[in-house]
C-alpha cells in the first residue's frame, strides 16, 4: 500500500513537472504568434483616375502596376510569385497585342525579377525563370465618396478584369 502511494506520488511529481514545462513552453511560443496585425491596410486609395497617365504607372508603396487605356483600368502586382522580390518593368520597343481574358490587351512592358531571373509578359504571364505562377491581378474600384481609384491587395481577380470609369 505504502509503496503504491510512493509510486503514485513519484509519477504525479514527474507528470506535473513535465506538464508545467510543456505548458510554459507552449505559452511562450503562442505568445509570439501575433493576434493583432499592424500591417498596412490592403484596401488603398490610389488617386483620381483622370490623373493617372496613359499607359503604365508603378506604385512602389503598394508594389503595384496600374495600367490605363483611355478610361479602362487594370492593376497587376509587382510581387514576384517565386520568392516575393519586386519585379521591374521594362518597356517594349513596340507594343504587342495579346488576347487576355477574352479581350485584346495592348502590352507595352514586360516584367523581370532581379532576384532569380523570372520573366513575365505585360499581362503578368510567367514565361521564363523559376516563377511558378503569373503575377496577381488585383481588383480595382472607384471610391463612392471621392471618386478615387481603389485597389484591394487581398482580392485577386481574373485576367479578364477591366475597370471602366465614367
Amino acid at each position: 500500500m505504502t509503496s503504491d502511494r510512493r509510486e503514485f506520488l513519484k509519477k504525479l511529481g514527474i507528470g506535473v513537472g513535465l506538464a508545467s514545462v510543456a505548458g510554459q513552453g507552449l505559452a511562450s511560443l503562442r505568445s509570439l504568434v501575433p493576434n493583432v496585425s499592424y500591417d498596412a491596410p490592403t484596401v488603398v486609395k490610389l488617386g483620381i483616375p483622370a490623373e493617372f497617365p496613359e499607359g503604365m504607372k508603378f506604385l512602389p508603396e503598394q508594389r503595384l502596376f496600374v495600367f490605363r487605356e483611355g478610361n479602362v483600368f487594370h492593376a497587376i502586382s509587382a510581387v514576384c510569385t517565386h520568392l516575393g522580390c519586386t519585379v521591374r518593368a521594362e518597356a517594349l520597343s513596340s507594343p504587342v497585342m495579346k488576347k487576355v481574358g477574352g479581350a485584346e490587351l495592348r502590352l507595352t512592358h514586360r516584367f523581370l525579377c532581379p532576384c532569380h531571373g523570372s520573366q513575365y509578359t505585360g499581362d503578368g504571364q510567367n514565361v521564363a525563370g523559376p516563377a511558378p505562377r503569373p503575377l496577381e491581378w488585383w481588383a480595382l474600384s472607384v471610391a463612392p465618396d471621392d471618386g478615387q481609384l481603389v485597389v484591394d491587395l487581398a482580392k485577386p481577380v481574373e485576367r479578364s478584369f477591366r475597370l471602366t470609369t465614367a
Partner: protein
Amino acid sequence: MAVLPTVPPEAPRPAPGVHLRRLWSVRPASDREAGDAIVANFILHWFPARSLKESMEWRYSLWLGTISTALLALLVASGIPLLFLHIPSVERAYGSVKDIENVVTFGSWIRAVHRLGAHLMVAVVFLHLARVFLTGAYKNGVGRGQNREWNWVIGVVMFLLTLFLSFTGYLLPWDQLAYWAVTVGTNIASAVPLVGAQMRELLLGGRAIDQPTLTRFHVLHVIVLPGVLGVLFAYHMWRIRKDGGLARADHATRLPAPAEVPAERTRTKTYSLLGVARGQGPLIRASSVERPETTVSSVPDLTRRVALVMLGTVAVISILAVFVPSPLEEPANALVTPNPAKAPWYFLWLQEIVTDTTIRIGSFTVNGALVGGVILPGLLVALLVVWPWLDRSPAAAAGRWFPRSRRTQNAVFLVIVAIVILLTIVGTFSRGPYWHLYWPWQAWPEMPTRF
C-alpha cells in the same frame, strides 16, 4: 595535574579533492603536477590528463574544431561592444551601424572582426565537418560504449546553427541586403507545405517585414542561438571524452606497439587515460595507446597547442580586419529590390538551386522555393544526420584520411561538395542584373537603379 606535551602544530592538509595551486603551471615539474592542473581547473578539465601524440598531429585534425572554438569566442567578444552600440529598431538600426562604421573609435575594426569571424566560422565549421566525414571520425572504434554517431549529429546541428547565426546577423544592419535576404529567406520558409505560412508569420512577427521582424532576429542572434550553440558546444566536448578521445585514438590502437609491453600495463582498468569509459570495461585496452611513449601530459603539450591555435586565429582575424572593410548597402528600401539581389556567398548555392528547380509537368507547377529551398537542402541535412548509421565500413576505417574501405562514400561526399562550390562560384561571379548569366569578363549592361 598532568601536563600534556606540546605538539608542534601541523601544517593544515588540503581536503580531499582540493588543490592548492590557484593557476595551473605552464611548466609542471612532475606528472602529478601536470595531472593536477587538469583536474583542478574548470576549463582544462575538458581535457584528459594525458593526450595521445597521434591525436594531436597537425595533419590529422588540422585543428579545425579548435579554430572554430576560437572564432566563436572571438565572435562573442566582438559582439558585446557591438551589442552596446547597435540599436535594434527599423528607424535607427541603419544609422547606428553607420555610426559604428564611421564615428565610433575602433568601431569599423570591431565590426570587421565580427563580420570576418562570422564568414570564417561558416567556412571553418564546414571544413571541420568535412574533415570528420573524410576521416570517418564519426565511427565507433574499438572502445566499448562509444556513441560517436551522436556527436556527429550534434556537430551537424551546430553547423546549421552557425549558418542561422550568420543569417540572423546580417539582417541587423537593416540595409538592402538585410531586407531582401529576409524577404527571400522567409518566403522559402513559407514554401514548406501545410505549416509554411504560419512559420513565416512566426518568424516575421506579422505578415510584413517590420519592427517585430528585426526584434525577433535580434533576439535570436544575440541570445537564443548563441545560448543553444554554447550548450551544444559543451556537450560536443564532453562527448569526445566519453567516446574515448578523437577517432585517431582508435586508429592508434591498431598500430603495432613500438616495443614489448610489460604485462601489468595491459591489465583492465575502469579508467583510461584518454577518457572515462561507460560500464566496467576498459575504454581502450591497447598497449600501444597506454604506453608512456605514445602519450604526453596534456599540460603543457596539449594546452600549448590549443593556445597557439587560438592565438593564431585571433591574430589572423585582427590583422585581416584592418585591411578588409565591411560593406554596408543602402538603407533597407521596401520599394526597390536591388538588381541583382545576391545572398552572401555561403547561401549563393541555395539561391542558384531555387532558381533552377521550378518543375513543370503539364499545367502542374512546383515552386523552386519548395524543391531547391526546402526539399533538396532538407535531404542533404537528413543524409548527413543518418550517414553514420548507413556507413557500413569496418571500424578500422575510423580516424584515417581516405581509407580504401570508404573510398566510394568519400568520393560522393567530395563530388557533392564540389557541386556546391561550383554553384557558389557561378552565383558569385557569373550572375548579373536580372540574375542573367554573364562571363566574369563580360560587362554588365547599364541598369537604372531607381524608377
